[in-house]
């Protein structure tokens, strides 16, 4: 990959500058105006942190945050299990019956419009409820099932791309030496796809935390997730409290990604150092 030429033209900087301004200026504006004392968001009248205080006193929002984090945690965990199994089935088991429909069920959720997924899920829960005595109380459980389903597809894509890159010979060697396929999976394959599983989990977590349309369809009156609260308040217009919430979310994401980048960079440096020392002596 070193053959890709590195350009240092003015065009490239212009494209990158404009592109990243487009991506980041809106986010920056939210942060700046969350510290605005004025209720009218875009009219600046002095620095203030009062909206943060109001945010923490808003019970509806706080309950929404707790519910959303709980659902996201459970959905991401379930999706990682299902998605990894799916990725393994697709990349390691060779020709299988039902493979075409399976692959379709992995790729279609990635692009399916949310209103269709939400409506179809809800109608499924209603129909199941008519036949068995299930899902009479829609809420956390139904949102969890819906989120797990679409997150599974994302995890499967992330994990299968890692599985494909992996050197098969190690797994084959373990198997030739008599290790049971399950043992091979847990001792050889799983550790080497762990980075992909972690990033799949994080992706599923943020996707679940972010969903408003599907949750609105499948939820009942008992469960209102954070995006549902935010959506109903944003529909009524701008609100400084939402800016404060946005700033907190942006800070958490920025901090987490910085830490991830820092640790990865450190690990990379150590690896290069170790490789050099092993080669030098």
């Amino acid at each position, binding site marked *: 990959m070193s*053959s*890709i*030429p*590195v350009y240092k033209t003015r065009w*490239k900087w212009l*494209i*990158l500058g404009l592109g990243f301004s*487009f*991506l*980041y200026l809106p*986010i920056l*504006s*939210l942060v700046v105006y969350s510290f605005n004392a004025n209720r*009218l*968001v*875009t009219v600046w009248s002095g620095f203030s942190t009062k909206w943060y205080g109001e945010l923490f006193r808003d019970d509806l929002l706080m309950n929404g945050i707790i519910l959303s984090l709980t659902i996201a945690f459970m959905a991401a965990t379930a999706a990682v299990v*299902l*998605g990894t*199994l799916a990725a*393994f*089935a*697709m*990349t390691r*088991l060779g*020709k299988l019956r039902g493979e075409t429909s*399976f692959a379709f*069920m*992995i*790729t*279609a*959720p990635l*692009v399916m*419009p*949310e*209103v*269709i997924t939400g*409506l179809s*899920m809800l*109608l*499924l829960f209603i129909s199941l409820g008519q036949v068995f005595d299930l899902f009479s109380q829609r809420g956390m459980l139904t949102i969890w*099932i819906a989120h*797990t*389903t679409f997150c*599974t597809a994302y995890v*499967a*894509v992330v994990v*299968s*791309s890692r599985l*494909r890159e992996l050197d098969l010979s190690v797994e084959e060697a373990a198997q030739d030496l*008599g290790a*049971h*396929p399950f043992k091979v999976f847990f001792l050889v394959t799983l550790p080497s796809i762990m980075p992909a599983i972690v990033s799949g989990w994080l992706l599923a977590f943020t996707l679940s935390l*972010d969903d408003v349309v599907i949750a*609105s369809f499948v939820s009942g009156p008992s469960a209102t997730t954070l*995006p549902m609260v*935010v959506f109903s308040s*944003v529909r009524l217009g*701008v609100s400084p409290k939402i800016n404060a919430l*946005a700033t907190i*979310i942006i800070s958490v994401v920025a901090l987490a990604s910085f830490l991830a980048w820092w640790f990865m960079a450190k690990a990379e440096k150590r690896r290069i150092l170790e490789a050099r020392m092993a080669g030098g002596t």
Partner: protein
Amino acid sequence: MSESRQNKRRRKLPSSKYLVLSVPYLWLLLFFLAPFFIVFKISFAEAQIAIPPFSELLSYADEQLQILLNVGNYFYLIDDDLYASAYLLSLKIAAISTFLCLLIGFPMAWAIVHSSPSSRNILLMLIILPSWTSFLIRVYAWIGILRNNGFLNNFLMSIGVIDKPLQILHTDTAVYIGIVYTYLPFMILPIYTALMRIDYSLIEAARDLGASTLTVLFKVLLPLAKGGIIAGSMLVFIPSVGEFVIPELLGGPDSILIGKVLWQEFFNNRDWPVASAVATIMLLLLVAPIMYFHRYQKREMGAS
């Protein structure tokens, strides 16, 4: 001895193989594929004031099994111009937004590919980072920017380009901006992957043979990156056809897109059968693009 063990393992393998497959398979079958058939079924029901608010298709009474298919919902969709124009407007906005994403996304992917290897990963992470924050909040940010007394109008007025605020929020323009902004990373990532795989000696060869920059772009670079462009376009086009949140928050009363129509039929009118019919037709319109995307993605995932 070892041979018998080998045989034993071979015999055991198929059953465990299908065990691994069956768990995610059954889950997706039940919770992803089966629901579409239920939507299809309920699109033939009649709306009722009941719980649930639709009629049963099958009834059994006096030793007669009756199937009542109500095709009225589909006639209703054909009769009322509102639906046809909502489908057309959604397809138009999705297509134009996809093209705009390509117009912005391709140069960005190109610029990142041609950066130094160490900065490539950082730039790529900066592309993905916004999508890890909340989608709703990023759309919300544009309300503050595009409003009549928002940043954009205030800025344009302060430098004297305009003397009274432009109405951008609650127009189709705002919907385009919202869709392009939220879906841009989905266009950039597959194009980036495709551009990274290109053999750049081909570009060099074309240049050496006297091809102009435009010829290189259209005859060499774009065809070589075709797979990524298709995948990115489908990742933007298909979901934005049914987009609800963006037209609801940024669009005006005229931006009646089909996702919004479905939502209103379901939540405001509580007409679940019509909402199901709207979803069924949307799905039929999207079958071809979804299959197109599936074919590309399957190759990417390495399924045989």
